[in-house]
């Protein structure tokens, strides 16, 4: 699995959590949903989580809307969710488990259409290069990058 994913989104998730400065994000490791989570419903009670990171399930699921509804269920009102998904480029299809990529627009709409209040969104290159170069690559759709959105549950 690790070898298959030449470009590993986990790096982007770590730096995003650090840079976004939402303290609650990533403090509870059990509330980080990655590619190993494939089943719904999530094993949490209604409104029991203060923060959630999801990076993996959205591009592997045939029904991303069900995941967003589930996230809305388990989050406490006003709590943040950081969602990360691959951008629509050819490299996405190198992973046979991936069903669909996203763009910033579709990831934003996915949350905004389900009553989340989108606070920030963007692209993040997966290249392991010095920061100035990475900032340039963030804007370049040809190379592996993810799109992300930070949204608050209503």
């Amino acid at each position: 699995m690790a070898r298959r994913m030449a470009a590993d989104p986990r790096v982007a998730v770590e730096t995003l959590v650090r840079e976004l400065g939402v303290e609650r994000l990533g403090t509870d490791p059990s509330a980080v949903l990655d590619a190993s989570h494939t089943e719904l419903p999530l094993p949490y009670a209604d409104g029991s989580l203060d923060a959630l990171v999801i990076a993996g399930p959205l591009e592997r699921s045939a029904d991303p809307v069900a995941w967003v509804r589930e996230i809305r269920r388990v989050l406490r009102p006003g709590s943040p969710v950081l969602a990360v998904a691959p951008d629509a480029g050819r490299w996405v299809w190198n992973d046979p488990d991936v069903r669909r990529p996203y763009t910033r627009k579709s990831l934003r709409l996915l949350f905004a259409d389900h009553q989340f209040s989108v606070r920030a969104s963007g692209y993040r290159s997966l290249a392991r290069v010095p920061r100035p170069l990475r900032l340039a690559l963030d804007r370049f759709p040809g190379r592996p990058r993810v799109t992300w959105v930070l949204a608050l549950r209503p």
Partner: protein
Amino acid sequence: VTETEPCAGSFAVWILDDGLIMGGGQRFALRLAGVLRRSGIQTRLLAPADSALAEEARRRGLDVADVRFPRLLPPAVTRIPAALTGLRRELARATPNTVVIGNTARCQAYATSSLLTMRRWPVLVHLMHEQDSANRRTARAVYRRFGVLVAVGENAAQTYRERLPGVEVATVSNFLDMAEMRRIEAARTPAPSPGAPVVGVLARLIPEKGVLELVEELAQIPDAWSSARIAAPPQDVEYTRAVRGRIAALGLTDRIHLLGEVSDLDRFFAEVDVLVVPSVGNEGQPTVIIESLLYGRPVIVRRHLWAQRFEDLPISSYAQPRELASALAAAPGPQLSAEELELRFGANEVLETLRRLGFAASSPITARPSYFDWHQEPGYYRDVTRHFATTDRILDVGCGTAWIGDHFDDYVGIDDSEEAVEQARARGRNALVHSVNEPFPFEDSSFDGVVVKDLLEHVRDPAAVVREIRRVLRPGGRVFASSPDAQRWVWDDYTHMRPFTRVGYRRLFADQGLAIETDGYESVMPGIGLVSGVTRRRRRPRLLAELARLPIIRRNVWVLARRPD
């Protein structure tokens, strides 16, 4: 690339006006800006700096930005790109809950074109002071898709509701603010003449205002009035000449006085007994009606005003000269105080409406999936309907609002969105709620044609849907299908499951036993629906259609296939 949303609650109103004339609409804008500012709402006027409107706005201490709206015809065409860039730069500074008001049709066109290329939209309000735009095809196409329609006056709202079925049209009434109402009330004078009344008209000399018609009518009832005072700037030179000529020809030069532009309303109303609004009916609600009532003068209008707030007021309407005569002979109604009139014509209603629009836009619940708009009839509808005869029995799979049904006598649409089907039925189209993932509720070989437009990219098992289509098609019947080509924009819509290619699309249909007749690319560039809507053929313009061969153009793949005999 990070982008942070500004906080909700920063409600602001921007008014766009081309400042071409200083008419009722412009005075409405100035009053509105004044009232908003006093309510602590950030207000800006975007208009050409050298216009009379901008000058007046600056005099009133309003925030004015210099934005130009050149004519959409030569020779001004060359200035359009620069004007659009300028407007776009201004609009980019608007927060998502800024209400941007297009105050004239031209400004609405400019605002729409600039917003099309923007990532984040403020709320666009088309404020309709007139009713002509309801008869313009391009304008209607814009109103169906972009922005919120707010009509001034119930007459205008009615017209837009009739021409744009299914589009919500909000109504606001013309208003005066309280300070101005009190001032006018204080300037009220007793009616001047005890005998036959002096008729007053406040308008502009353009055909829509019906001044020429009024002159004819007055000539037919010479005993019902003593003189007429027409305060109207000569905006249309030809028309002004015609009015003047007609007055002379009827020998009424000493009774009908053309006063030109009048700025001192106190004096004007002191010298007339009754205000006549002879407008032939393609504008909003003239402010002069409210002003006249405040000056204590009854009003006679040519068209009945459809608004509750006009009931029980000294306002009468006429169609024939003799009705005008009896209206002039009637005793003047009761004099109303500014307080009484404020209840009906105060600024509260318009403020409430704008606030509601501002907040509705800032709440995420109103956000819709991006594909929703596509289910309205596009300007290139003939590109779809031309494959079938109007007498064919047609099945529309994933019909949305079922606009295709308007082009066929025997039509049925299915869609799994209850909301879409409800809208389709509200427009009298034959549609039913049915998930395309289930077998179709129709018998074998029961249709002459099937349309499956923008659907197969949304379903989990496209082959199963095509199998069902083949089953319900009669031998020799045709199916038209289109879906996005494998391009990046496909993934802008999170309900898309997969794109197609021409090869893949052909195989999809051929594998289920259908014979491919034609296939190709069709352009779905943003705005192509609007462009195609003004063509005579109602198809994509040939050049733009050809451009879809280039992979950089946003395009669909389409196929026309036949069930073999």
